[in-house]
């Protein structure tokens, strides 16, 4: 078990450096001289610009910048924005609400997705199954922002059931709609995955053996079908957490949430490399941790791979 986790951890190290380097390179190559942009309309003297460049290490070669940056991460120093704010403060403001949103979305997609998926899987080919399949396709096909709009309009404006935007009101009620919108596509995937898994496992040989023992249908369902079917679903959900946090840009935009997505978007537009890279680095770390957790969960759920 330990060697399995250890090996996965080792594999993630190059991934961490590679991904962060990649995004650093992309951002670094963003055109435009951010220093001049700082000066606004007045423009900066060459000397002042030079001073700022030195301060932000912008004059050093790319690789050195990158390594300095990575060094900084390990002491939680993510640098400062061009307006002087420590990036870590910016992130500390933005991450909590996004984490809250992502967890709510995860709960929504897992609970509802699994329930519906199980029912559809058991009654495969029935009316519920066909309906649910078509619905899931539609949810995947319609872009998140359209779903977001429509829901915001109907539920928020027309029927006034939930707050239209979030802003500083980050209560759970206010986040319900955005969570549903954010988790919608994943909900469809969880549903389909569960359905497929349950439907396959129902036909498994060991389910027949369980029935042959005289176990009640309920027990067979619980201990054999569900238990095994949920393994792939659990791994998907684990990996989805990272994806949810990184993909919330649109949702946060529509519902006015000052989270990671919105902050990131602004930073990209303004050409703030440090903020962009920092946020993405944290997202990559979240992704890596989520993947390791998933591997752990998988090993707990499936004894076969514990010694792989």
């Amino acid at each position, binding site marked *: 078990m330990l*060697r399995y986790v250890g090996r996965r951890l080792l594999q993630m190290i190059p991934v961490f450096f590679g991904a962060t380097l990649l995004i650093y390179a992309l951002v670094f190559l963003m055109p435009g001289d951010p220093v001049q942009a700082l000066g606004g309309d007045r423009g900066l003297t060459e000397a002042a610009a030079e001073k700022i460049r030195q301060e932000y290490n912008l004059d050093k070669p790319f690789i050195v910048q990158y390594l300095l940056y990575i060094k900084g991460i390990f002491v939680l120093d993510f640098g400062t924005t061009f307006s002087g704010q420590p990036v870590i403060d910016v992130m500390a403001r933005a991450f909590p609400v996004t984490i809250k949103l992502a967890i709510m979305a995860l709960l929504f997609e897992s609970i509802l997705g699994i329930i519906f998926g199980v029912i559809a899987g058991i009654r495969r080919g029935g009316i519920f199954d066909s309906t649910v399949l078509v619905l899931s396709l539609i949810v995947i096909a319609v872009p998140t922002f359209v779903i977001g709009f429509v829901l915001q309009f109907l539920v928020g404006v027309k029927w006034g059931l939930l707050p239209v935007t979030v802003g500083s009101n980050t209560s759970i009620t206010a986040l319900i709609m955005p969570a549903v919108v954010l988790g919608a596509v994943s909900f469809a995937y969880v549903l389909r995955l569960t359905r497929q898994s349950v439907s396959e496992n129902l*036909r*498994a*040989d*060991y389910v*027949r*053996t*369980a*029935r*042959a*023992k*005289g*176990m*009640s*249908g309920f*027990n067979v369902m619980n*201990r*054999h079908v569900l*238990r*095994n079917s949920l*393994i792939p679903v659990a791994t998907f959900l684990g990996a989805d957490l990272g994806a949810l946090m990184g993909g919330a840009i649109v949702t946060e935009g529509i519902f006015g949430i000052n989270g990671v997505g919105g902050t990131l978007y602004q930073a990209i537009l303004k050409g703030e490399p440090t903020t962009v890279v920092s946020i993405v680095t944290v997202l990559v770390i979240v992704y890596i941790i989520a993947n390791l957790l998933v591997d752990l969960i998988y090993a707990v*759920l*499936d*004894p*076969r791979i514990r*010694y792989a």
Partner: protein
Amino acid sequence: MTTNIPQTPNHEGEQPLLELKDLKISFTSSTGVVDAVRGANLTIYPGQSVAIVGESGSGKSTTAMSIIGLLPGTGKVTEGSIMFDGQDITGLSNKQMEKYRGSEIGLVPQDPMTNLNPVWRIGTQVKESLRANHVVPGSEMDKRVAEVLAEAGLPDAERRAKQYPHEFSGGMRQRALIAIGLAARPKLLIADEPTSALDVTVQRQILDHLETLTKDLGTAVLFITHDLGLAAERAEHLVVMHRGRIVESGPSLKILRNPQHPYTQRLVKAAPSLASARIQSAQEQGIESAELLSATAVAEGTIPEMEEKVIEVKNLTREFDIRGARGDKKKLKAVDDVSFFVRKGTTTALVGESGSGKSTVANMVLNLLEPTSGEVLYNGTDLTSLSHKEIFQMRRKLQVVFQNPYGSLDPMYSIYRCIEEPLTIHKVGGDRKAREARVAELLDMVSMPRSTMRRYPNELSGGQRQRIAIARALALNPEVIVLDEAVSALDVLVQNQILTLLAELQQELKLTYLFITHDLAVVRQTADDVVVMQKGRIVEKGRTDDIFNDPQQHYTRDLINAVPGLGIELGTGENLV
């Protein structure tokens, strides 16, 4: 060699435990309704052993599953009745059947790997049976689990109960399944091919054990099997099914010695274990058996070429680096100092159970795997010393037919392309027209219609695909063909057909065969020489007659004794047409 057939004492006026009357079972698919079982009649008495024998598609498993109410998919009993212990249990709902399952009717299913849930411990799965049938109160469950597992022949039961299925060997898993099937002491145990996935020596142990156990408990056993020999050995009443109908049924020995129905006659004639039993009998009586398919039997006297060594293996060894169960590095000697030779124009059988190393040897002979040490000589030349190009040339002379008919032909290739492939790779055979003619010729040789060329593997049955594989192997006019368990996955009649074909081809084309197999009965019929392997080493080798009539080693004797049906007194088969 006579074997003990279970004898039930005289029970006057006893009521049958199970009665199937005119049972009809059908499945609904997208193409319509298919009748899997048409009018089956079966009676089983308490404590009796009955066997249903048939090939795949005969309906034997379907019949058995209907008794316990576990028909797969859309299966349904459409007519007839199932009476169990005087009660009509046809068409009971799942909830109603739950009362019978486990406590009255038990099941030992076929494949030990897929029939155990990989995520639960063995002990837990046994406990489920105890719990579902309220066998013992909760506090005594763990004890009973260990008892039941030990009963089924699992040593160190208490420790084993805490392990997971993947930590068990195939034989151990099967024993666990038997324990589960018998845990609640059912009156009837349905054993669906309970040992077909296992090694032959393990098979015998398990079946012996099952026999003793069920006799002690007074459980009736319904065996489902494709192996006539097994059926005759273990059951007193035999039922033969073909395409959903019962074609013959009655006392097992009687049917085997004197089958009446044409289908049963075919089966009895073709079953390797029975054929081997008859050959042995003939040998003992000094008669030349007509059923031998080996080259030396066909030839008159010994032909000088037959003493030539076409393949010789010297001190062949192969080691693998593997990880043990706890993740530690180990070296596995899959093949350990193996030496033997294959005589030209004859068949040498390389026999062994799983883990014996026979397939690894075959792979080294075919140059698909590098030996760690030792030599493989082909007509005197050491294969390991040849250059890449020379090996390529040599491949034309050494061909192979693999075991799995459903995997050895590329599903994307038409049959024509499959057979043509060797010609294109080695750039022989001339232009397209010439190649087509050659492929047609090859199809003729394996008795397949020429139109098969245009077809695809998924349209052919297992036996037909093997014939294509043989045709492909013949394309380059080889000298030697390695048959790696080439008939093990086939039904009895088809197996016999392929073996006969191979024997004919051997005669016609003067081929040499290296036959890798675990089935000693097939070896008796077809091989001139036998090499017995166990755990990577050679245990014994020699002429077939010598090995079977006078085995020297303990293991060889075990192997021969383990073949189901080999020991039954069947006569010499003169009455079989």
